[in-house]
Every structure is written in C-alpha cells, then in structure tokens.
C-alpha cells in the first residue's frame, strides 16, 4: 500500500472512533457540527470540541503569530528605556500611583488621555479594515483568547494525545493513567495561567523590582490579587471555556455582519467545486461528482467544532485550520488544493455564473476605513509632535467675581496653574498683556517672589494672582475686558499666553 492509502485508512479508523463518540457521530453520520439542529434543546449542554492537529501553511502562520504575540506580552515589561535620573527606565509602564503612562518615548499625563482614546480609535478602525478585507483575522490569529486557547489545546494534546485519543480517553473509565494525564494537563494549564497573570502585573510596576519582591514574597497585596485574578480568568476562559467565550461572551462576532461585505475574503468551502460530496474510492473517476470526499477533516480540525461546509457562521473565528486540513486531503486524493480557501461571496457567484473570479480589495468601504485611519493617525502625530511640555491654565475667581478696594479700584483673582512636564525644575515669570493700567499682585502669603513662579520637575503649581484696575477703566468696557496672562520660562524664554476676562461692575 502507498503512504497515501495508509494515511487514508488511518483517517477512516479515526472517523470510526469518532463516530462512537456521541454526538459527534450519532445516527450513522460520522461527523456532526456541534450547532446542528439535533443538538438544540432548551438549555444546551456544551458539546466538547476535540480539535485535531493539522499541518500546513496556516498552522505554521499560527505558530508564528502565537510565538510573536506571547513574546511581546512577556518581554515588553522587561524592555528598558532611559529617561534620565529619578524617572522610571521601563519602556512600557502604567504608573497609576504617579498617574503617568510611559510608552517608549511617549509620556502621557492623565489630562492627555485622549492619546489613548486616539489609539483605541486607530485600533478599532484597523480592525474594521482588516475585517472588511479578510474577515476575522483578529479572531483567528491574534486575539489573546485564540492565542491562549491554542496554547492550552496544545498542552492538552501533549498530555492526552490528538483528537481520537482524547475522545477515547474521555470515554474510558477513570484510571490511574487517565488521572495522571488529566492532572498533569491541569497543572501545566495553571502554571501557564499563573505566568500570564504574573506577567500582567509587571506592566504596572518596575518589573525587576517587582520580580524580586514576588520571589521573596514581599510584593504588595494588590500584585498578588491581580496575579490571582488573571490566573483565574486565563485558566477559566482560555483552558476551560475556550470556544464558549467566542460564541457567547464576545460581542465582536455579532458586529461581523456589519463589517463583511460580498467582496471580503472569508474562509469558505467552495461548494461549486465540492458538491456533490461523498466518499471516493481510489482509482475511480471524479466525473459527475464534487471534490469533497466527506472525510470530515475540516470539522475535526475546527477549534470551534463547526462544519465550514454549512457556510458562513457566527461561530467561525476564521482561523483557517480547516484550509490546512482540507489541503492535506486534497494532496492525498490528488485533487487541486483550495477546496476550502479564502474566498469571497462575490467570487462564488461569479464562478457559478461562469465568470472569472477576481479580488477587489479597493472598494468604498476599505478606502473609507483607510482614509479614516490616515486622518486619525495624522491628527495623533500632529498632536504628539506639537505636544507641549508647558501647560498653563487660568481660572478666574467666581466667588466673588470682583472685589472693590478702598480706593475704588476693582480687583479680580485668578488661579494660574502652571504645569511643567519637563524632568527639570523651571522658574516662570507671569505678566499681563492687553490690559492697560492693570496691576498684577500676589496674595500676601503666597510665599514667593512676586510674578516669579517656581515649578519643580513634573509638577503643577497653582499660583494665585490678583489683577487690579481703576474703576473708570472697567466701567468704560461695560464691566468686562479681555486680556492675557503671559507665562515666560526663564532661561529658555519659552512663552505661553492664556486668555482671561476681567470683570467689574457694569455702571
């Protein structure tokens, strides 16, 4: 017998084994999708999915993406970035106690949180774009739920074997060997979950310091709490709940309908080529039948447990593993690859109508998303490149709006808030512009040289100033006059103007 015939025989044996496992092969059907009609009572018991290992380009791609994303997750907190003395040298740090987000060269203060908003807008537009081009690429390859579930499934495979072996093991009575395999699996799962939670906390504190604290059991309680929380969620969602998260918890699959269109590349079964499906005996003709030999390998490989041949489904995360599984079979039966492939609805129609299939990546939807991404990115870049390290805010006293002094002059009070975002202290001179005859003073007890405000590094100083005007002046203006505070940095001469209003009695 040839190798091909051997492996086909093995597939048939596996299929037979699977057929015994209800409901995967009830009523003479060898494979049934978990969401098929007969599996639908009022409350549905979970039908366990036993994804089979496949080999191929998409599996290799998924290995690569898993390695890269996990590496990013675990390594990022350990990257260093020198910011000068007295400042954290962690490249990515969310420092909540000090209320600073550090991201490489970026340093975001709480009042600049709109940069994070912009980042989220970019992320969602990017998600829209790739989804309209190539479907749920995020879900299939990069989503943490997918990556960790994939990892957990491989651990399961290591301890319990591949699909058929796992089905057999679950059906077998409890034994020492079974207990050992199951226990080993759960221990490794928990260790991975622990490592996930453990890495998470490094984003919020200096990683080397916290690592030492964790090892010497001196870490703050909040660190342990979050490690525990993330261990629990990673274990529950990634190892136990798996596809249930995607089907029942995640809102994203529901939004898909609005993101695809008929030109989106989706993992599809080409029924024009595959039907009529049916078992095929080696050496017999392919005339008058489809290429699908109904071997069920696409269903066996599916981590969501569905049958891609039923068409586009909410459950499908488009991981493309069925493509690998089917291509393998097509090679063995010597038919062209691509019975299951990235395909568009429109091309399916074109083929049926005898037209040549073609891709149209550039269409209004993708152009719109791309343009929006460019616009938002440009706004962000502009904002970041012109980001000021000196912010001035002027808040006029409202209670009282103005004060009449003994000599009849009108006085207004202002809080001049000077925010020095640089890592060194600066002194600023505060002066007025556009208010003739005005006098600038500071309250007696402010404790600083008049008009000079000293602001330490990375700090905000709230300096109170009084502005006085002769009464005739403000009455002539109808009770209101606009002017500006000018804050000049001593040394560099940098200037920030902030407009304010002077108020007095109107008569």
């Amino acid at each position, binding site marked *: 017998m040839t190798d091909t015939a051997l492996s086909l025989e093995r597939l048939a044996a596996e299929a037979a084994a699977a057929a015994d496992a209800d409901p995967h092969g009830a009523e003479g059907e060898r494979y049934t999708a978990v969401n098929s009609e007969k599996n639908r009572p009022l409350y549905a018991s979970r039908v366990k999915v036993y994804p089979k290992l496949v080999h191929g380009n998409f599996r290799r791609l998924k290995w690569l993406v898993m390695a890269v994303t996990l590496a990013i997750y675990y390594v990022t907190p350990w990257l260093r970035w020198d910011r000068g003395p007295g400042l954290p040298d962690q490249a990515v740090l969310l420092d909540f106690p000090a209320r600073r987000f550090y991201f490489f060269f970026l340093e975001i203060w709480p009042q600049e949180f709109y940069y994070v908003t912009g980042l989220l807008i970019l992320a969602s537009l990017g998600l829209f774009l790739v989804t309209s081009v190539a479907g749920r690429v995020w879900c299939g390859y990069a989503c943490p739920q997918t990556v960790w579930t994939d990892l957990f499934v491989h651990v399961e495979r290591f301890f319990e074997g591949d699909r058929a072996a796992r089905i057999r093991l679950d059906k077998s009575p409890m034994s020492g060997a079974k207990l050992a395999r199951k226990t080993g699996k759960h221990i490794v799962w928990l260790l991975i979950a622990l490592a996930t939670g453990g890495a998470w906390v490094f984003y919020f504190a200096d990683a080397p310091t916290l690592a030492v604290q964790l090892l010497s059991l001196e870490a703050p309680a909040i660190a342990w709490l979050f490690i525990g929380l993330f261990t629990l969620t990673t274990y529950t969602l990634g190892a136990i709940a798996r596809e249930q998260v995607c089907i029942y918890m995640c809102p994203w699959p529901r939004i898909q309908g609005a993101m695809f269109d008929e030109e989106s590349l989706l993992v599809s079964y080409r029924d024009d080529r595959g039907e009529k499906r049916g078992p095929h005996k080696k050496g017999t003709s392919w005339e008058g039948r489809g290429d699908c030999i109904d071997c069920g390998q696409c269903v066996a490989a599916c981590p969501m447990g569905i049958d891609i041949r039923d068409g586009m489904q909410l459950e499908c995360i488009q991981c493309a593993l069925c493509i690998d599984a089917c291509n393998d079979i097509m090679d063995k039966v010597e038919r062209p690859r691509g019975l299951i492939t990235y395909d568009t609805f429109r091309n399916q129609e074109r083929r049926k109508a005898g037209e040549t299939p073609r891709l149209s990546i550039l269409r209004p939807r993708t152009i719109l998303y791309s343009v929006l991404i460019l616009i938002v990115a440009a706004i962000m870049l502009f904002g970041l490149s012109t980001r000021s390290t000196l912010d001035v805010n002027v808040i006029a006293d409202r209670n*009282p709006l103005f004060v009449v*002094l003994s000599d009849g002059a009108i006085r207004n009070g202002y809080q001049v808030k000077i925010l020095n975002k640089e890592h060194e202290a600066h002194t600023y001179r505060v002066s007025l512009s556009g208010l003739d005859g005005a006098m600038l003073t500071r309250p*007696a*007890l402010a404790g600083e040289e008049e008009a000079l405000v000293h602001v330490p590094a990375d700090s905000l100083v709230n300096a109170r100033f009084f502005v006085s005007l002769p009464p005739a002046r403000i009455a002539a203006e109808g009770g209101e006059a606009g002017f500006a505070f000018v804050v000049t940095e001593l040394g560099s001469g940098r200037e920030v103007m902030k407009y304010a209003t002077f108020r007095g009695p109107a008569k």
Partner: protein
Amino acid sequence: MSEKHKDDVTGVETTGHEWDGIRELNNPLPKWWLYTFYVTIVWCFAYWVVMPAWPYLTTEGWTYTKGAIGYEQRAVVANEIAAVHETRAEAMQRIAELPLPEVAADAALMELALGAGKAAFGDNCAPCHGSGAQGFKGFPNLNDDNWIWGGKLDDIHYTITHGIRWEAAPDTRNNIMMAYGRDGLLTRAEISDVAEYVLSLTNRAENAEAASRGEEVFASQCVACHGEGGVGNRELGAPSLNTAVWLYGGERADIIETVSNGRSGTMPAWGGRLNEATIKSLTLFVHSLGGGEDEAAPAMR
C-alpha cells in the same frame, strides 16, 4: 404567539415574533450560563448573611440586618477621617503653638493651614460672610483691603477669638455707633448736613454749603472716633468714611439711616468654640484672601 416558524437557513425555530421581516432565532441558552445565573442567586443569599442587607421594623423604629462581618460604611468613613486627623495631628499642634508669621513662613504648614482654614470658613463663617467671603450688607467683605478692626494677622486672630460686641466674651471688640436721630442727639437737618459732608469725603457732595455745615457737626460729634477727614480708627473699630467700601451702603439714604439709628453688628467669639489650630488656620486663610496686611508677617519670603 403565531404558529411555529422555522428559519430556512439555520433550521432553527424562531421566537414567532417578527419585526419588519426580522425574526429572532430561538437558540437554546448554554447550560453553563444557566448555572452562572444560579451561582449569582447563591451569591445573593451569602451576601445577605455577610453584609448589611435587610431593613426591618422594631419597637424602636427601623433598623437593618447588620451582617456577619459587621461592615458599616459610616464606620469606614469615621475611621478614614480619624486616620487623616491622626496624620495631621502633629502639624496642627505646631500650627497651634507657633506664632502666626512662623506658620506662614513654613510652606508645608501654610498649605495645611490654608486648607483647614478654608474648610473651617465654609463650616463656620460662610453663613454671614458668604461662601466666597464676599460679605453682605452689615457683614464685611473679607477680600478687600478695608478693615474696621485691622487686617494684620494678629488683628484678625483677635477678632475671630473674641468676636465683636459679643457679650459672653469679656475681651470682645466693642464700641457704639450712637443712634443720633432716634435718640434726639442731632436734628434731621444736622443729620442731612453731616451725610452731605460724609459724601463730600468721596467727592460725591452735591451741596457744598450743606457739606460745610455738616463738617462742623462732624467735628463735634464724629471726629472722636472716625477721625479727621473720616479716615477711621482701627483702635476703636471706627470705619473709614473716605473710601469706596461701605459696610452698610454708601448712598445718601444709607448714610442718613446709619447716623439716625446707629449700627451695632455682632460677631460671635470663636475662642473656646474652635480650637486654637483652627482659629489660626482661619486667620491665615482670611489673611490670604487678598486684603491681608503685611506688617505682622515679616517672615514672609
């Protein structure tokens, strides 16, 4: 409910309702979801036992189940406030003991004092002086540079401690603005003249002759307290009459009413009611509002 309808594509029964051609699939709920719901029910019973939960009526009125761990939000707040007081106790003690200028010179103490003063002002002083210390008729504005009893730190401290015309305080600030009209000390014409003279001090007189008659009345009756030219006398608590700031209004009618009926506003003595650290904080806060006078605070930077 209409008759059963099956969706053609999925083969799933729909709920039977239809909205503009859109039907809802009647998919089964996952069992683990149902169990999650049961767990939340169990959680709620556990919560009732552990935490304060149910109100009930006793003969002494409404109360509630206290819960097994005795958690109470009021107690949490009380503990937090006590903790804050404890951390500040030492600094507040220093504020109470140090002379005011030294407190003002210490940036950290000053920050604490201004905060404490602002809070104490809102609690105790705002009802009369206003939340912005802007004052009302009869209640002085504390933002301006016009002081009846003095605007130095010590003056303000004395006023707050002993009050004004506060009988219960032996050292209270006291004086009398007599009711010249009501008590028949001056005639209506004399009062009108003296009002004209007072208006002339701020260049608002309309009748120079009356003002000059009023000056004579002023010299005999008013100058002892209000001083030559109405400059006022802080020793005696006599307001200046030659500025733009008027406690009871500066129009002719206001002045005539003041001279006729007298004025004797009171302010409680806060010594004994508030502790020394609070009174000092209040002093520093009021002093910082913009009218505080410098001489008594030489230690300032």
